[in-house]
């Protein structure tokens, strides 16, 4: 009798106990402090990679989230003397003679509208270029110049299957560029919207085609996705076509534009031969070819042009307004069909504002850029308000706002510009850091802030400084990137590679000397070298290591030569034997217990002495 009762009581109690226990677990999790949410214990890895552009440093910062730890700076448009970027022959060739670039908008390659972890692209606003970084080794592999594009700002913003990267003019110039009076800006200057194709297998980039545009300033872009696949949307300001005091003159009109480009239609036009070639690129003139570009009026000097994950809406952040403008893709299609136009510029129809606009969301002052989560919310950065507004797609209500420190430019959510945002966090990239870190003099770092967006209210978790100057970021699930940890030596196809010490040698051809050298713990072979004054010496160094993180350096005293050679890699660096004397060289990257012994000597004899 007692036993039966006991069982009954247990059964009656079990459900509430279980519920209570689960509730407790949930409460504990929900009650995590900000510190617990960003804490990554020693030996553990972050869950996300954040790629933040380095602006005019010409580099890209790779951070781990949620910890905010800086893992690596990838040199792209600017030299990095530690690695030898811009010093060794290979990287010098990639850099194409420039030593700076303004790296603005990192863009991860996509497959079916979501990041695939293969490549990272970034534009150079200064010298009109796009670079491709291979995420197999986080090294810049290629930089392409976009002819005719003055100040490539609205770039690279990939299409959903990385068919194209885009580029667009920020500073209009004559196309082709020539000497004309600046005062003839309206007649002689043009903007250009450019499409760069990407090879599916190799990632190789080529200038596919361009569209000639009025001399506005094209700012940011996003490719259409899902229903709006085949289109791309570019924000532009300065529809006043000012060239002098833009601060005033370019801020007169209440509305500027988002240019909607039907790139599928442009492809057709190119196939039909409806283009002219300018500087080797096929250029479509919208005055001659209709149906490629339309203008969506957008208040006021819009910065961000962001397509929602479902592809149905285009969100314009009017940086001098207090609202974001939401355009409907379907409405736009109907308006085009009906010919609901309000004039045209340079043959490009301007759609009626009322016919395309779905909502104006009163987010606050200075809306710049919008990202999305997995719950149907949008997050807009507010530069002037120094805040982030959270608002709901569909109802267009602002539901929450959080201050950030200070003056946020862009923000990035996890997969936040793809068809499949992951939610969880949003990262604020703030322009002004004053007082947030230990003072280091008048030049302050930039400041990033990590915000939890999993709850109803946004929660500030973490500040961390970033090197100059993130203009845009991409955050990707870390499991999607699987880099190689060493270069397999047996796959090293460098023409100057040698695979063992007995192949090491010096070859002379006139005053060109090729040194085939190996580096392995803890010596170089050969390590005693004799040249003559005036010799052009090419050091081809192969790091024979196949062990993780055993990088060797090669630095020559009294010179500008230094570089790193990764395990299994071959690099070539040129050094001129300018003056007779003795030049020590050594391993500059700490490699082993005998690293300090890893050295050699160069002897340069005066001309004709030997």
């Amino acid at each position: 009798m007692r036993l039966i009762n006991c069982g009954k009581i247990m059964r009656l109690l079990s459900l509430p106990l279980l519920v209570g226990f689960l509730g407790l677990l949930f409460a504990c999790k929900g009650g995590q402090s900000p510190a617990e949410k960003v804490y990554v214990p020693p030996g553990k890895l972050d869950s996300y990679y954040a790629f933040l552009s380095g602006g005019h440093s010409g580099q890209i910062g790779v951070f781990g989230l949620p910890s905010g730890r800086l893992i690596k700076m990838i040199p792209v448009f600017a030299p990095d003397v530690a690695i030898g970027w811009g010093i060794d022959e290979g990287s010098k060739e990639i850099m194409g003679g420039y030593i700076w670039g303004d790296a603005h908008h990192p863009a991860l390659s996509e497959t079916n509208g979501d990041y695939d972890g293969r490549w990272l692209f970034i534009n150079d606003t200064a010298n009109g270029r796009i670079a491709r970084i291979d995420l197999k080794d986080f090294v810049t592999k290629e930089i392409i110049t976009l002819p005719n594009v003055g100040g490539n700002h609205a770039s690279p913003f990939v299409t959903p299957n990385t068919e194209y990267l885009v580029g667009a003019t920020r500073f209009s110039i004559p196309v082709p560029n020539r000497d004309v009076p600046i005062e003839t800006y309206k007649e002689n200057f043009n903007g250009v919207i450019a499409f760069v194709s990407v090879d599916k297998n190799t990632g190789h980039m080529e200038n596919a085609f361009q569209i000639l545009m009025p001399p506005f300033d094209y700012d940011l872009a996003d490719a259409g996705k899902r229903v709006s696949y085949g289109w791309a949307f570019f924000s532009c300001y300065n529809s006043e076509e000012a060239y002098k005091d833009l601060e005033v003159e370019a801020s007169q009109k209440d509305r500027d534009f988002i240019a909607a480009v039907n790139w599928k239609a442009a492809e057709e036009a190119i196939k039909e031969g409806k283009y002219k070639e300018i500087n080797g690129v096929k250029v479509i003139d919208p005055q001659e070819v209709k149906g490629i570009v339309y203008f969506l009026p957008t208040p006021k000097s819009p910065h961000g042009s962001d397509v929602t994950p479902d592809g149905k809406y285009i969100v314009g952040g009017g940086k001098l307004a207090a609202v974001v403008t939401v355009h409907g893709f379907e409405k736009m299609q109907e308006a085009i069909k009906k010919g609901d136009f309000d004039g045209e510029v340079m043959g490009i129809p301007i759609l009626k504002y009322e016919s395309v606009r779905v909502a104006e969301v009163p987010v606050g002052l200075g809306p710049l850029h919008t990202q999305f989560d997995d719950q149907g919310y949008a997050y807009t950065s507010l530069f002037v308000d120094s805040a982030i507004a959270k608002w709901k797609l569909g109802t267009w209500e602002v539901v929450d706002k959080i201050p950030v420190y200070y003056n946020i430019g862009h923000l990035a959510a996890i997969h936040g510009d793809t068809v499949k945002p992951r939610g969880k966090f949003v990262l604020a990239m703030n322009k002004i850091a004053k007082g947030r870190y230990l003072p280091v003099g008048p030049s302050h770092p930039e400041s990033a802030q990590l915000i939890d967006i999993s709850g109803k209210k946004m929660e500030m978790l973490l500040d961390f400084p970033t090197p100059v100057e993130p203009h845009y970021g991409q955050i990707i699930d870390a499991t999607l990137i699987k880099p190689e940890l060493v270069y397999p030596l047996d796959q090293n196809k460098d023409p100057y590679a040698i695979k063992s010490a007995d192949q090491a040698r010096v070859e002379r051809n006139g005053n060109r000397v090729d040194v085939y050298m190996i580096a392995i713990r803890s010596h170089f072979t050969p390590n005693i070298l004799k040249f003559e004054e005036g010799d052009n010496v090419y050091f081809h160094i192969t790091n024979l290591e196949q062990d993780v993180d055993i990088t060797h350096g090669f630095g020559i005293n009294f010179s500008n030569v230094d570089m790193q050679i990764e395990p299994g890699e071959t690099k070539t660096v040129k050094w001129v034997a300018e003056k007779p004397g003795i030049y020590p060289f050594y391993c500059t990257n700490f490699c082993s217990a005998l690293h300090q012994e890893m050295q050699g000597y160069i002897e340069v004899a005066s001309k004709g002495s030997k």
Partner: protein
Amino acid sequence: MAKDTLTIIDNRTGKSYEIPISLSKRVRILILAAALLIIPGIFLPVWTITLVAPQYPKGIKMSIYANKLTEYNPETGMTSNVPRLINGLNHYIGMHEIRPDEFKEFRWLPFMIIAFSILALLSAIVGKWHFATLGWILFILFGIFMIGDFYRWLYEYGHNLSPQAAIKIDPYMPPVIGWKRLANFTVISLPGTGSILVGFAAILGPIILWLESRQKRLS
């Protein structure tokens, strides 16, 4: 005329048993099994040596096969036929480089394995105790010889240290089986799957004897 039975003496009881000199069907099947167990030794690792250190928490694993050796680095997932990492580390203490082409064993060991498998197969076919026992004894002697050979190599590597080494250590004997510390490394030496299977084959000898004598006792 030869006897057609074999006398087995139980040491504990002192009793002796007569068993037929021809092998029973069960025994022949077991010998056949031994022949098959030896064969994978051609392509499975014979012995493995793993080096673990603070900076190599996952270890570097060298697998010795009948005809080659491989070095596997779990960090990179890379396998190489020359123990590049281990040689690289060993050069600090002046250990002679491990060069696969210096092991003559790699040339004949696979054939020895095949030979012993054929020998076992023949024992099963011939089905005579004398033949089978002789085969088993040869097999065991060969095993002892191989372990001795392995010991000799390890001794060579541990004692033939270059006097020019950057780091001077006392000559040391790496473990044939088990583990031992050397500086920051722990060296773990264990039989590979190939040897384990060969070991099973070898153990079948006493098992057969035990089974047969038990059968005799029962009957």
